[in-house]
């Protein structure tokens, strides 16, 4: 049996490696695409583009505004006329405009309240919510310091709390770590699904599947031969991502054990290739297979919990999400790479991936056998 499988594996390899543009796209995927994704800051809510309309132009207003700084805010401009306010928000050049009233300094000096207006572009609801929370926090802090200054000596005895923040696992909250790892794990899913399904459907489209079937190879052997090359290629290419992008360019730390990560990755690729085989067994043309793949991939990728916090999702959809191996793999990947989790901590994730993978493999092979009869 092993020689038969080996022969088939060699054939699959040759088919992939001979396709020059495919090899190029694969290399691109695991290097350039991961680099750009890491730099894209796609899910970030910090550095909110902020325009300032300071009608007070006083020392007090400048002091207050100096607290709006990175990483939370990115000052994109100082507005001069009232028309600018609407224009900048309309055109999306700024997501918030902070409007300091002309009497800002006078009111503060007089012990009154100065009303700062914050206009937010609600078209990006998350950024807007976060921006409002940040500004509320900043002005609260600033107000407290003003009160302290104002009431002079008595304030030495004003109680307050102060927080010492420690960010674990990614102290500078670098989105490059998050983004590049996410893209890598997404590509694991995408490439293993696509390559396997496409290679299998191609045999159907070209009519070469019959040749495989009349060969002495058994269905399981055909399946294994389709899965193994993808597994090897994807794992090798991901090594490239670590060596060329994640380590040297983004300095992503590898806190856990790399063999553990690769063991989990191999298990995950097995699950995704099995899913790919299942799709290939059902679809008759590559075009059909492609549409089914999107149907699965898009929700899988964007509901995996990396883009959106799972605790905010509606319960039944969260339950559906439990069926996605990517969900466990992302959890597993961040845990091992960034948190340095041991095998014991990630064992539930690994078990879930293994169960889903085996179920998929069994389903596709059962379906395949039935379709032969």
């Amino acid at each position: 049996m092993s020689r038969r499988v080996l022969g088939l594996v060699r054939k699959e390899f040759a088919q992939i490696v001979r396709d020059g543009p495919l090899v190029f796209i694969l290399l691109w995927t695991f290097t350039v695409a991961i680099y750009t994704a890491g730099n894209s800051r796609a899910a970030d809510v910090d550095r909110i583009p902020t325009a300032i309309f300071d009608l007070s132009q006083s020392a007090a207003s400048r002091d207050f505004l100096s607290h709006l700084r990175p990483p939370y805010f990115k000052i994109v401009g100082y507005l001069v006329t009232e028309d600018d306010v609407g224009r900048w928000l309309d055109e999306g050049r700024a997501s918030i405009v902070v409007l300091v009233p002309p009497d800002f300094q006078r009111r503060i000096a007089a012990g009154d309240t100065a009303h700062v207006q914050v206009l937010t572009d609600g078209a990006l609801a998350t950024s807007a919510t976060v921006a409002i929370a940040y500004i509320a926090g900043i002005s609260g802090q600033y107000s407290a310091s003003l009160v302290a200054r104002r009431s002079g000596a008595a304030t030495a005895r004003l109680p307050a709390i102060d927080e010492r923040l420690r960010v674990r696992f990614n102290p500078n909250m670098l989105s490059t770590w998050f983004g590049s790892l996410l893209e890598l794990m997404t590509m694991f899913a995408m490439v293993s699904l696509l390559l396997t399904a496409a290679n299998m459907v191609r045999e159907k489209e070209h009519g070469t599947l019959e040749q495989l079937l009349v060969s002495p190879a058994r269905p399981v052997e055909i399946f294994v031969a389709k899965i193994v090359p993808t597994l090897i290629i994807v794992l090798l290419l991901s090594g490239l991502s670590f060596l060329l992008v994640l380590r040297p360019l983004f300095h992503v730390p590898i806190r856990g054990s790399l063999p553990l990560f690769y063991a989990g990755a191999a298990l995950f690729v097995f699950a995704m290739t099995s899913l790919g085989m299942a799709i290939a067994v059902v679809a008759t043309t590559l075009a059909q297979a492609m549409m089914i793949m999107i149907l699965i991939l898009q929700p899988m990728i964007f509901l995996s919990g990396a883009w959106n916090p799972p605790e905010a999702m509606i319960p039944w959809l969260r339950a559906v999400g439990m069926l996605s191996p990517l969900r466990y793999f992302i959890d597993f990947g961040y845990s091992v790479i960034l948190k340095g989790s041991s095998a014991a901590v990630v064992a539930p994730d690994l078990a879930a991936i293994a169960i889903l993978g085996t179920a998929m493999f069994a389903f596709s092979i059962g379906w395949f056998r039935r379709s032969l009869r």
Partner: protein
Amino acid sequence: MRSRIVAILRKESREFVRDPVYLALAIVVPAVVMTLLGLGFVLDVTNLPVAFYDQDQSAISREYMYGFTNSEYFRLVRIARTTAELDELLQTGEVRAAIIVPSDFSRALRAGRTATIQVLVDGSFASRALIVTGYIAAADAQFNSTLTAQALARLGLPPAAPPISVDGRVWFNPTLETKNSIVPGLLVISLMFYPGLLAALVVVREKERGTIFNLYCAPISRWEIIVGKAAPYAAVAFVDYLLLFVMSVWMFGVRFVGDFFVLTTGAALYIVCCIGVGLLISVLCPTQVAAMLATFVGLMTPSIMFSGMMTPVASMEPSAQAISRLIPASYFMRMVRGVFLKRLGFDAYLPDFCRLALFGLVVYSIAIVAFRKKVA
């Protein structure tokens, strides 16, 4: 010439119609994915799981904790008894933040000193960590202002007016519902992705089957082939657009204040562009596998990352802004946001219309030229 292009059109449409499964998938899949993502892509940060370790165990430390547990932003998962327990909760991802209230908390506050609490945040999901720290800072500021007010009252001083008050006003989406920003965004992403994919296999499929030679030797010019192949897919994609639009407005109830005509014109132009991208990939790739992978990798994630769907383009790095300027999704995103939420005048969209038209012109020109090379 007229009859030749009609012939190509008829051939392509027939091929499409004869695979009813594919045709059905091309229309149903976008709708299903839109439904799932529209329901699931909730970015609201609420119910953040947090844990406390209260070393003080006093009335005031409990009051401090209530400040968190009573808000919709936080959900108390556990009150830990050791630091190691907190570490483990963070390690397994059960909580995103842990707060340690020191044992001298109430003593320091009673003495009018500053008590330092320790906040531990899981930084692996970078953007979420920032949101968490922002929310915790806001909650702490709130607690501080209560403390100050109480202290002033105790000292017999008049309550100080807060020196600065912030009045927030939200434009375009006053209730800050995420669906109003996510669903129109999904429309843009879908219309980039599906037309691109539909078109990506069109030419390369004929290459694999060998039927491309029929086209090579037929008395048809290159542009007739490209246009004839693009048209049926553009038509299907347009049906997708209408369906997705109806879903966004009726099913999801997204606010729609603008002009449907402007949006539809923009969508038609955008679809033609995206079909063009797919065709170009199809012309350049020798196999269907390569074309499909190129489209997935080249269209799916970049259109989400660089179109400004979640992060405003203005806050990106210059290099990311450059990519954003190159992809039609960011032009159409501005248009869609404008029409759905902002009700701008037609001139506001004019630059984006021109950019889309230019993009289309360039892509189709390259596709036609590249197609010719293969003939030679």
